[in-house]
């Protein structure tokens, strides 16, 4: 692990004058920041994987053939019904994904990171599929009919008329999903990934009087991330809202 006493961030913060345990947190700000980077990267990668797999899955649940639906729904039920720790144990220990896809040899990430992304990403896909299924179904059937009547094929109608409206309606659900995935990255502590919570734990094990301070500091970081991103998504929602009567 890199130096426990960070120089840059801690220096910038000016940790002197703080109570001892807060000073400890402050001095290790760089170390925690490293965990934060990992947490953010894990969240983004998982949500992207979740979208890449979840959106088509949701579309299949609405438009797919009977068997395709059945397959997607079954996988979804299993993923949504399994605790995230158990999913991690599978992706890391039981069927380590990096055995088949040694991505960690190409990218500067650990095998635990890959296992966590796959675990969180697949589970997020299962939830995002439900979200997109709901928003696709919420688009009035008349929209599809009108699009078909103009001469668009079913796929074109879905792409140009239904999906643009469904995506807009998905933003609030996506805000929830983002918040859940962000916080659940902390469960990657179970497979030793050095994300924010894991690093926090390493710190308070070293300095047992600072448990509360470390945990509070970490919580504040999670809060700022969830709050800030949710506000940004609120903006996005307003920005792309379909104009209604003035």
């Amino acid at each position: 692990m890199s130096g426990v006493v960070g120089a840059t961030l801690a220096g910038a913060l000016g940790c002197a004058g703080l109570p001892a345990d807060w000073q400890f947190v402050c001095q290790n700000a760089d170390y925690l920041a490293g965990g934060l980077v990992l947490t953010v990267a894990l969240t983004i990668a998982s949500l992207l994987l979740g979208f890449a797999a979840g959106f088509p899955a949701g579309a299949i649940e609405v438009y797919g053939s009977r068997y395709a639906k059945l397959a997607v729904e079954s996988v979804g039920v299993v993923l949504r019904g399994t605790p995230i720790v158990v999913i991690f144990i599978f992706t890391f220990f039981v069927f380590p994904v990096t055995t088949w896809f040694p991505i960690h040899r190409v990218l500067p990430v650990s095998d635990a990171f890959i296992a966590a992304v796959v675990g969180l990403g697949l589970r997020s896909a299962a939830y995002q599929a439900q979200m997109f299924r709901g928003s696709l179904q919420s688009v009035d059937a008349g929209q599809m009919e009108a699009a078909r009547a103009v001469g668009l094929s079913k796929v074109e109608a879905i792409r140009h008329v239904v999906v643009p409206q469904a995506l807009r309606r998905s933003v609030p659900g996506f805000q929830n999903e983002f918040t859940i995935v962000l916080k659940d990255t902390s469960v990657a502590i179970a497979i030793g990934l050095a994300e924010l919570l894991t690093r926090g734990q390493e710190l308070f094990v070293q300095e047992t009087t600072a448990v509360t301070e470390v945990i509070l500091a970490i919580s504040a970081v999670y809060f700022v991330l969830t709050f800030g991103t949710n506000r940004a998504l609120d903006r996005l929602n307003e920005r792309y809202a379909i104009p209604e009567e003035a």
Partner: protein
Amino acid sequence: MNEATNDTDPLLSVESVSKSYGDEQVLSDVSFEMDRSDVTVLMGPSGSGKSTMLRCVNRLTEVDSGEIRLGDMVVTDPSTNVDELRRSVGMVFQDINLFAHLTALLNVTLGLRKVRGMDAETARSLGVEHLERVGLGDQLDSYPGELSGGQKQRVGIARALAMEPELMLFDEPTSALDPELIGEVVEVMRDLAAGGTTMLVVTHEMGFAREAATDAIFLEDGRIVEDGPPEQLFENPQKDRTAQFLERITSMYDS
């Protein structure tokens, strides 16, 4: 649009069309024809099969038996490309169904670009032209949610019209509108009829039917009770049932 060679053949021919949903017979043995520039009005009590008849023409609904032809195309032939068919048939809906996420102009140009393959510039100028034709040249960038019901339906008409269809279908285009907004939509439809657009219209707008229609068909329980020129059907109906129905809607609309 009027090709000399086709002038003698009907543009639309509906022959012995039947359709049922489960036990419910929605259309029984319906036959009629339309020439180019005809305006045919379909009337009848709710549940009489008018809308189903209309939807069979662009295959939003499939017939059980019978044949529909549009020009050279056998509409009811399963091998007929529905997307191609729908390029030749415009439809205006009771629920209007404008694309909610698109401005008035983009509602009109979507089909032009994606179906007729026009570039954005050509589609835009054609879209503007058609919106101006329905009196909405000043609402190009308004979203459906920002328009009144009458304006929305006029965009709906422009959207269908811009595709330059051979036949326009109107499925109760004014039924969902506030009474004071019906006039502007009917006016646009009158202009189209006068301009030679071939129109098959499900409506109870007697004024429109009287002035603009070339034919009127009275449907009940999926059967044609009576058809003929509107003046004959309205002034001198041959069947009691037609007379009763007309009396009822006339008193309703005149009150």
